[in-house]
Every structure is written in C-alpha cells, then in structure tokens.
C-alpha cells in the first residue's frame, strides 16, 4: 500500500454517554432519547470546538441497523439536523455492521484524499435499547450471513459465534488460562470505564471484578464458553469527529497540535458466507492492521496507545495477537500480566472500550478515533495515560471479522 498521498488530520472529537443497562439514569420502562437526540448531541459537541460550521464540506454517518432498531433509514439526510450549514451538501450513511463507524472514517478519509473535500464531519450512531436483548440479538445477527447462518444459529447469535472462538482458543491455550485472561480483560475494561463519566460501566462499583469475570458460562441459558460479563452490553450513543486536510485545519481555526494525523489506514472485507479460516485468529483484523501500519511506515512497537474491538472479551484477547503484540496463543498471558491495562506498556481501550464504555454499534469505530485523538493530544482527562510513543492504532471490526477498518494516528 502506498503512503498517504496527502496529509489528513482528525480533530475536535466528541461522544455522548453510552446509555443502557448499568447506567443509573437508564430505565427500560420509561421513554428514552432517539436517534435525533444522539446525532444532535455528538455533532454539536464537535461544532462547539470549532469556529464557523459552514467550513464543513461533507458529512458521513456510520450506522448498522437503524432500519430495524428505530424503523429509520436515510440517516445521511437525518444528520443535517446537527446544523443548518450541513444542508445542500453531500451527506451519506455507510454500513459495515459493527465496523460502520470505522467505515465512516475510511469513507471520509477518501473524500479528503480525493481533494473534493477539506473538512468532513464523520459520525456514528446506534440506538439499540428499543428492544429486549433477545430481539436485539435478532437484529445484530444481520452482521452474519443471515440466509445461511441464522436459522440454525443460537438464540443469542453473536455471543454464540464468539463462544465458539473462546472455546477454540481455550482448547489451544488451556481453558483455565483463557478464562482467567478473559476475566482480566473484563476487569481492565470496567476499571478504565470507571474513569470515564460517559461510560456505561462508569457507575459499576462491584468490588471483585475478577470474580464476576470468572463466572462459569451457562450453556443452557446463554452460551458454552462466554458468560454475560464477557459481552459488551446493549447501548445507545453517538460519536463524532472532524477529518480535515491541512487547508481544512486552517479553515477550522485549529492548530496542528489540536489534531492527530491519519498516518495510514486499512480497510478490508472478507467473504461473509464463509466460516472464519481459523477460529483462534482474527485474520481480517490482522491484515487490516498490517496494511495500516505499512501505509504509515511504522511497526506495532511504534504505537503507544490502542483501541481494539472488544465486543467480547475473547475478541479483545485475539485482537492483541492480531496486532502482533503477542504471538498466536500468547495474548492471554500478556493480558493476564497486565500489559494492556492503562498502567501497562500497551494501554488498550483507555476509555473502557466496547465492554466498559459500551457498544452503540454504528458509533463504536468513531468513538475509538475520538479516544485515540484525546490520548494523543493530551485531552483524555481522567483517562489520560502517559505516552511513550508517537502513534496510536485502532481496529474497528464488523461481524465475525468480516469488515475491518484500521487506522494509525500520529501525534
């Protein structure tokens, strides 16, 4: 992959609270804000950080399943509610399952690279608490091969799919080691979330997180190899950030140090109808991250902060290996040793990640970019970790490792 033909920057990120079970203000029996609320709140939080919103040339919004969760299509048009100056400009919604947010970023990057836009507002949104978790599982199953997999698949479809991966990984490294590492991943996620007031697990005050994480899975009521703590929860939320060329930054009135540079990106799709080549590897994630790093001309050792797609604790462990931080099968030990905690050498998901912050599916990729931008520009507040290196890397995954977008960001 060639180097980036033109500098592209990320700046002025923001995201909303991830609302859902775990937040004190969440009540499944009362009404809740809808798509408009989240789009407005995240979008306007971006605009509050810049001068004139009229300099925005385009909008892109990532969303997975509003058509089912909210019976709403046409989100490209809906996103113009953020500000009147967005009207009569290009805006579109992109979809790539849980990588929809990552895909929105990739789409925006290409617009800036094309030279047709200097400033792109990139958003992601999902409002999922409109249905019970059992029916949410139906909608999210659309990220798999529906015609081929759903009918014979488990009731909780994606937990079932990643349970298979957890089982295979346990068979490879030993089930006890795998379970302990997944429990440690859960503990890290909640401990990080407790520092992030917008996180779904912010109010979590359970004293012994590891004990929860070690809960034996119940195949009769849920899955064979995953317990409920291994899973990201059902979430409502949105994230937004600006992509800009050098000229765009100037128009926005932002300095270089307010922004991070997109040093490289990888965007890949794998065959939705085929089973994963190896249950113990996130192959597409590995290839996309490698592509992004090659484009940026860096190795994984050059990155000091990480955002990975831990929709389940097992995908967190496998992401550590996919990034090349550990050899295949060695990720569990690395996580158990605390290497991916905010105090470790590879601080990962410092705002809580999908398990700690929450997983409003279409927003997650954009939220990752916001968290990396905050860390790399020293804006992460209570979540801030000391940065030993110049780069951050994120991997946004859709479905069972089928659509992946990876970004390397440079301070």
């Amino acid at each position, binding site marked *: 992959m060639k180097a980036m033909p033109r500098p592209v920057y990320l700046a002025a990120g923001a995201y909303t609270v991830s609302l859902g079970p775990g937040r004190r203000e969440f009540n499944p029996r009362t009404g809740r804000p809808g798509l408009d609320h989240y789009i407005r709140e995240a979008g306007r939080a971006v605009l509050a950080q810049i001068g004139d919103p009229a300099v925005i040339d385009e909008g892109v919004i990532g969303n997975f399943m509003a058509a089912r969760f909210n019976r709403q299509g046409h989100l490209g048009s809906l996103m113009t509610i953020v500000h009147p100056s967005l009207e009569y400009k290009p805006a579109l919604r992109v979809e790539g399952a849980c990588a929809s947010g990552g895909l929105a970023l990739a789409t925006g990057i290409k617009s800036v690279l094309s030279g047709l836009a200097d400033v792109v507002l990139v958003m992601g949104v999902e409002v999922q608490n409109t249905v*019970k978790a059992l*029916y949410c599982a*139906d909608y999210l199953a659309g990220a798999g091969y529906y015609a081929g997999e*759903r*009918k*014979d698949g488990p*009731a909780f479809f994606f937990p079932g799919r990643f349970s298979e991966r957890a089982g295979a990984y346990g068979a490879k490294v030993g089930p006890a080691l795998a379970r302990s590492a997944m429990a440690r991943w859960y503990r890290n996620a909640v401990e990080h979330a407790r520092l992030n007031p917008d996180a779904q697990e912010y109010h979590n005050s359970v004293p012994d997180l590891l004990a929860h994480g070690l809960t034996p899975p119940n195949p009769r009521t849920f899955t064979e190899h995953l317990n409920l703590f291994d899973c990201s929860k059902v979430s409502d939320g949105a994230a937004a950030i600006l992509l800009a060329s050098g000229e765009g930054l100037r128009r926005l009135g932002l300095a270089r140090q307010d922004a991070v540079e997109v040093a490289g990106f990888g965007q890949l799709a794998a065959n939705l109808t085929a089973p994963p080549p190896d249950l113990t590897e996130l192959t597409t994630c590995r290839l996309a991250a490698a592509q992004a790093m090659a484009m940026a001309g860096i190795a994984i050792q050059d990155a000091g902060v990480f955002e990975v797609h831990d929709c389940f604790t097992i995908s967190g462990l496998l992401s550590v290996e996919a990034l090349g931080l550990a050899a295949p099968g060695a990720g569990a030990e690395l996580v158990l040793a605390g290497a991916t905690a905010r105090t470790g050498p590879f601080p990962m998901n410092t705002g809580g990640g999908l398990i700690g912050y929450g997983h409003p599916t279409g927003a997650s990729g954009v939220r990752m970019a916001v968290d990396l931008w905050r860390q790399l520009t020293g804006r992460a507040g209570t979540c801030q970790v000391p940065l030993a290196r110049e780069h951050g890397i994120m991997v946004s995954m859709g479905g069972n490792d089928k659509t992946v977008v990876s970004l390397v960001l440079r301070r």
Partner: protein
Amino acid sequence: MDLNTRLRQVAVVGAAGKMGSGIALLLALELAYRALEQPDATFILNLIDMNDAGLQGLVRYLRDQAAKDGEKQINRLRALFRDRADLVDNQDMVQEFVFEVLLRIRTGKTLALAAESLLVFEAAFETEEVKHAIYRDLAARCPAETFFLTNTSSIPLQPLGEACGIPGRLIGFHFYNPPAVQKLVELIRPRDCAPELAALAGELARTLRKTTVPANDIAGFIGNGHFIRDGLYAIREVERLAPEHGFVPALYLVDRVSRDFLLRPMGIFQLMDYVGIDVFQLITRVMAAHLGEDLHSELIDRVLALGVKGGQAPGGAQKPGFLDYQKGRPAAVYDPAAGAYASLDSPWAREADARLGPLPEPGQSWKALSRDPDPTAKLTAWFRSLRDLDTLGADLARRHYRASRETGLGLVRRGVADGPEDVNEVLKLGFFHLYGPITDYL
C-alpha cells in the same frame, strides 16, 4: 384415560379471577407446548367467567405472559420450530408461540363451554352456594368420565361431590397465589376419590412443576387451617393491647412483630390484606359451619361494613385494608373509629417502635435468610436472643410464636395434616415462611 388425552379438552371455571387467571396461564402454556410437540392432536382450553371485561383482560394477560414465557424458553422454541423455514428470528418464534397459545383458547360466559371438557378446573367465588350451583350444572353437562379439580381453599369436598352428583370425580387441587409462580399445590383427596383421579392429579402437578402436600378433607385444610386461626389470634392480640396502647398502635405492633421479630415475609395484617379481608371472612364462615368452631370476628365485620376490603387491584397493586400501602410497603394503619388511615410517618409509630424495644441480635431479615440455603443456625441464634430479651416486642413475638405452633399442632391432632412436616411444608412453600410453625426454636 391418560393425562395427555384429558388435557386435549380442558376448562377453567372462574378463569378471570386472581387464581383462575394464573391457572389458565399455566394450562395455556402447557397445552401450547403439547400442541407443538403433537401436531396431529388438538388441544382446547375453555375459559369461563361471568365477567366480559375480565375475560378480555384475561386474554390480554395470557398474550403478554405467553410472550414472556416464550422469551425465557427461546432455546426450546428454536428446537421446536427447527423445521419451520418461515420462522428465523427469535421474534418470529416468540410471536408464533403466542399465536399457538391463543389458538387453543376459547372464552365464554356459560358453563355450556365446558360440555366436552375432560378436566375441569374450578376457581370460583369461595362460597358453598356458588360451588354447589356450578358443580350441579357441570354434572349435567360434562361426560361421565370428566374429572373436576377445585381450587377451594376451605370447602370440604366429600359432601360437595355427593350433593352435586359427581362422587369420586372431585379432588382438591389448591394452588397458592400467584399460581404461575408459587410452587405449592395442596392436594385434598376426599374419602371416595377415584384412585385414577388421585394419580392423575399427582402427575399433573409434576407436569406443571409443582410440589404437592397432602391435606385431609377437613374445612380450611392446612393452609387456611393455620392462616385463619393465626389471623384471628392477631386480632385478639390487638383487642388485648388496644386499651393500653390504642387501637391503631396495637395493630401496628402486632403486624410489625409478626414480620420483623418472627422473620416472616409480611406482617399478619398485611397478609390478611393481601388475601382480601372479604375472602378471609368467607373462609371463616365456611370453616365455622363445618367445624362448629367460633371463628367470628367483630373487627372483620366492622371494617368490611366500612368498605375496607384489601385484595389486589387488576394490575396487581395492593388495595388498602387494615393497612394502606405506598410502593407495596405499609404506610398507614386503618382507624375504624375515625374511618381514616393514620400515617406511619408520625410520632405515634416511633413511640410504638420504642415500646417494642430492639430486635434480637445479630440482626437478620426475612429477605436475606430466604436466600440462605440453610438458615437453621442463624434462626437458632435469633430465637435464643429473642428468648432472653425482656421487652414488649420479644414478649409479643414469643406469644405469637407459641400460638402459631399450637395452631399447627392442632392441625395434626385433628387429622387435617398427616404429620408436622406437612404443616411446616405448607407454611414454608405456600406462605414463604423460613421455618414451619411446629419447630422448637423457642
């Protein structure tokens, strides 16, 4: 005729009531699953009630509860619908299941609807006149092989079956409230009960995942045999304490002691409100008529005459009775002299608490102990502490404990229960007590 054959034609009489609707739900779900597993057979559930609005409310309730059950049983549904290519999502299957449940339901206002039923559950108003009228009518309409399962909690069955021309075909199958949740069924087998019916009732209880406790065919059986006398004891205590403490504080004292000192899930007057003071009175009348025992209470007559009845609103909320409630918790005590409720958030309640004195040590609650797989040691320590306290609260608790124990022993003595274990089991399973009345903690 086996249970499965009988379940193909079932009726519930009094189906829109509190107990009837719960029984209807249990049967509706059971019949739907059987229908799905036996696609060539038809299963019909006739739901009979005199109240049109009640029947519509019942169908709505069954729809909502069927969806909840289907959601809980999603793995079973996914397996049952494996060959249905048109059902893919969880939602498709739960909706289809709800349809399958409602498909079996026929509602109506007359007993003619039960004419083909082979099993008839009856949960009608608890008076002998009503039950006699129903069974005489059913005896004329239903096939000779039909079995009748009554949910009566007090009326002796042998004379009822004989008087109505269904001898041997009637059994007591007494669910506890709410039937869909409570594990206990008190099984009352009249003297002439057909062995086939007794065996069938046992099999049905297992099918519905209920635990049966046998009680003998003596008015009130075990559950009400204890509860009614326990309630009347509490009323006598209030009358004893009222001259010194005043009626309202006295009622509060007795209710609180039975809950907090005896570690019951609710106080005795709250329980009477839960059952309904009017229902309580009906049961005392049935029991008094058959047992020749004086079970009359002037206080009950008086509050009912003032329109204070307790019982539950259609949504399940507790209606005011001896106590008034906020968010399900006692918040005021009824004062018949004033015809009004006296709030617990008042100095008199705090004074009453002070007069009771401290709770035994170490502190326990019914809620915490109810989750304890074996609370025996904690209960022993609690009652040892209670025994040594020289306070009004401890004195009232000891008196109530002994009265309750004596009531339990009386049930064994009179042959209502076959042994102390059956009394204890009914109180533990049906009333959620932590310990049976016939125990030696004091």
